[in-house]
């Protein structure tokens, strides 16, 4: 079920809220059970057969968690159980996501003359797989506690985050369903939740969906476009992806808030970043944190341990040497981003996306180390603003190049488009559309991206999420704050009305495919 669909907005959501309010009068457990059932209905609405995949995954992981925590008495090593679970989860993920695309990839390149039909990817498989792996890892390390089945079911399936995140950490979400508090609906939280939901809807339906046709057209032309059209199409996609995904996350956070549940933030104006390191601290934040905790840090730990074993230094100073840098920074960064890239799909374009970001991050880390070694004084006054704008522009350009591959149907398509953007072979291009109106639209969207506060900043006074990102707490020159008053109520109501009108052909969210 899509958040931006009539059935969700006019049937599922009101029904779920109403029954939630009714069952909340009985017991906390009733709330947990009801939200778990509602989430399964939400998930199974599109293709009920995928409930078997989700159900099997939950049962398998819950069984392993019971074995790890010795809830089911056993003498099997917890390490063995954990690695079995990780192998099982990743095996299922690979089966659905990579096996057939990979077979077809080799078939195409080796001319084997066979074609395998892709299996349909169960919605949100990456997200619920990652969530559960993290829980089992922490359970094995004694950081998490064993849950009863329905609490676990709800933790994995809670419908606002089930399909495209944010990726929830058990420590963030489970305590909120275990507190001794009034579980009924609260007008406070409904007000904040509905407002945040409307803001997300605005991003998705009013902005992202308006940019989508231009981006789709340009990326379907196999590079047969003029330079201006290539730029317009690629930047339309860069903005579309941000507004689509952050709109989804705003809706998810708003929905959770309606039930008085706080989610972690997933976006914090990433295009305002002045470096790639900062970009990844602001873009898909829960995935970045997940990758950092469960991939990058263990990898770095292993490398450090290996160096120490060989008598090499692992200090910050050692990272400043070329050998230490390559070993302790470049290698784990490149490997992590390589995996992050192919997580998005089994295509060379995703691999290039990951490797590009790995390279960007490596260069960025090298630059930081170089600057810290030189002990350069930070710039002051207008010069600092000037340079800041330059860094933001450079970061955006790097992201734009990487997303060109990310969106392309193949490596060649991405290269062709970048060639057009660089005015290479531009003479062979067709005329597709008058660029001026689209450029004006992009300027308007860019103004929202760079000059307006983001949604959590607007809602900052009402604790919109578990935490605010550091960047969201800085002073800003356009102080727009949400308040429960008539103007905001009517404005956001108008957004919902406009969205309802635009939902006649509801479009899916871009991150559903991952």
């Amino acid at each position: 079920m899509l958040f931006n669909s009539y059935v969700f907005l006019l049937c599922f959501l009101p029904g779920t809220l109403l029954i939630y309010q009714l069952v909340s009068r009985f017991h906390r457990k009733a709330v947990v059970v009801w939200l778990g059932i509602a989430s399964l209905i939400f998930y199974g609405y599109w293709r009920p057969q995928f409930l078997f995949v989700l159900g099997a995954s939950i049962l398998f992981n819950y069984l392993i968690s019971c074995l790890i925590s010795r809830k089911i008495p056993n003498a099997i090593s917890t390490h063995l159980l954990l690695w079995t679970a990780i192998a099982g989860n990743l095996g299922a993920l690979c089966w659905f996501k990579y096996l057939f695309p990979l077979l077809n990839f080799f078939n195409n390149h080796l001319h084997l003359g066979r074609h395998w039909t892709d299996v349909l990817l169960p919605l949100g498989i990456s997200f619920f797989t990652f969530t559960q792996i993290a829980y089992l890892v922490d359970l094995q390390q004694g950081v998490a506690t064993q849950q009863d089945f329905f609490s676990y079911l709800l933790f994995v399936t809670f419908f606002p985050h089930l399909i495209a995140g944010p990726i929830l950490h058990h420590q963030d979400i489970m305590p909120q369903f275990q507190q001794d508090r009034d579980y009924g609906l609260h007008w406070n939280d409904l007000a904040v939740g509905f407002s945040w939901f409307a803001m997300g809807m605005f991003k998705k339906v009013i902005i992202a969906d308006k940019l989508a046709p231009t981006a789709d057209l340009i990326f379907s032309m196999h590079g047969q476009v003029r330079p201006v059209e290539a730029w317009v199409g690629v930047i339309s996609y860069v903005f579309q992806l941000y507004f689509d995904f952050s709109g989804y996350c705003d809706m998810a956070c708003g929905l959770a808030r309606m039930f008085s549940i706080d989610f972690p933030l997933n976006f914090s104006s990433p295009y305002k970043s002045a470096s790639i390191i900062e970009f990844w601290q602001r873009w898909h934040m829960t995935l970045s944190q997940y990758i950092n905790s469960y991939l990058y840090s263990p990898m770095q730990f292993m490398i450090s341990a290996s160096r120490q074993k060989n008598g090499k230094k692992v200090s910050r100073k050692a990272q400043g040497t070329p050998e230490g840098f390559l070993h302790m920074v470049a290698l784990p960064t490149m490997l992590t981003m390589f995996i992050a890239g192919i997580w998005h799909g089994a295509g060379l374009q995703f691999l290039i996306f990951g490797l590009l970001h790995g390279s960007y991050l490596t260069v960025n880390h090298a630059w930081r180390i170089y600057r810290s070694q030189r002990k350069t004084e930070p710039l002051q006054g207008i010069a600092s603003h000037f340079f800041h704008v330059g860094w933001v522009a450079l970061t955006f350009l790097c992201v734009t190049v990487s997303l060109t591959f990310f969106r392309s149907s193949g490596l060649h398509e991405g290269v062709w488009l970048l060639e057009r953007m660089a005015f290479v072979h531009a003479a062979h291009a067709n005329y597709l559309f008058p660029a001026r109106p689209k450029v004006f639209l992009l300027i308007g969207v860019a103004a929202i991206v760079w000059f307006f506060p983001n949604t959590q900043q607007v809602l900052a006074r009402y604790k919109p999420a578990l935490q605010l990102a550091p960047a969201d707490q800085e002073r800003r020159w356009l102080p727009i704050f949400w308040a429960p008053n008539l103007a905001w109520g009517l404005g956001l109501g108008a957004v919902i009305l406009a969205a309802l009108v635009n939902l006649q052909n509801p479009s899916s969210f871009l991150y559903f495919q991952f």
Partner: protein
Amino acid sequence: MNTATEPIHAPHATSRLAERKGFRFICYYMLLPIVGYLFPFFAERFPPLQPYCVTYGGSILDHAHGLAGQDADVIFFGDSTAMFGVDTERLSRKLGLKVLNIPNTLGSLANTGDWTLREYLDGNKPPRLIVFQTAPWNLDFHQTANPGPYEGDEEIVRHADPREFFRFTGAHPLEIFYFPFRFYASPTPLTNLRAWGKLNLAPVVQGFSPNLNPVSLQPSCTFPDIELHLQATGSVRELLSKYRTSKTMTVSYLSPIPNCTNVDQILARHYPGLTVAPPVVVPPQDIVADFTHAHPMRAYVPVTTDIAYDFVRRQLLRGSAAEP
């Protein structure tokens, strides 16, 4: 204690003041969606607003509801090919009889069925002849793939009496449910004046309005599969028997079709249970290049009208001969 202007900390505070403010805010928030949802139903029924809420198709279809007292000898009832293809004024002159078209589109027929014909017959003398005219591929009015069913919803909301409205709502609840959203998304003077201003509108005379699209079909045109595929003829057969009386003859008439490359497949077609002559084939360049493949160019309407004239005259003569 928490007030509405203080930050709300998790677990979220629920003080009365904040709760009241929250409740009031939700009321403000719901106001526009609810009013906005109900407004189209009101505006479509409120005469001063009606001219500003009408779509292009609706502006022609509205003429079906102002025919009380305009008794006619020959009634055309069919899809848009009848509406765009038979100049009823010219036909009246040639026949020396009053001819009226009760305008419909395939999209409106899917929802309104024969409602407008019933409405006409309830308020007028029975005609001598009712011609059910459709393109050869539109013999099933109730097909679900009809384009533009909004036109039918619009006519129901604009003109149906409460009984008809609730009957329709019972049969098509989703059409009524989605109506306000379609209302805002359709080009009308109220919702999209710019798009409305770009439309080519011609006056409607006796239910006829020419199609002003200036682009015609190419000689190399082909009919798409959906038009080659024979649909059920039940809708037309039902109408033929339903409205045939001792005073009124009913006949089925297929609109002229362009001589596209695969026209033979349509001409070779049989229509089970329906007595109907094959359609007349006309040059493609005299037919508008749209998805229907059957709307005559404005300049060609006299020819398609004369083809209809021959048909009607034969039917009337046959009817006269059959009378005692």
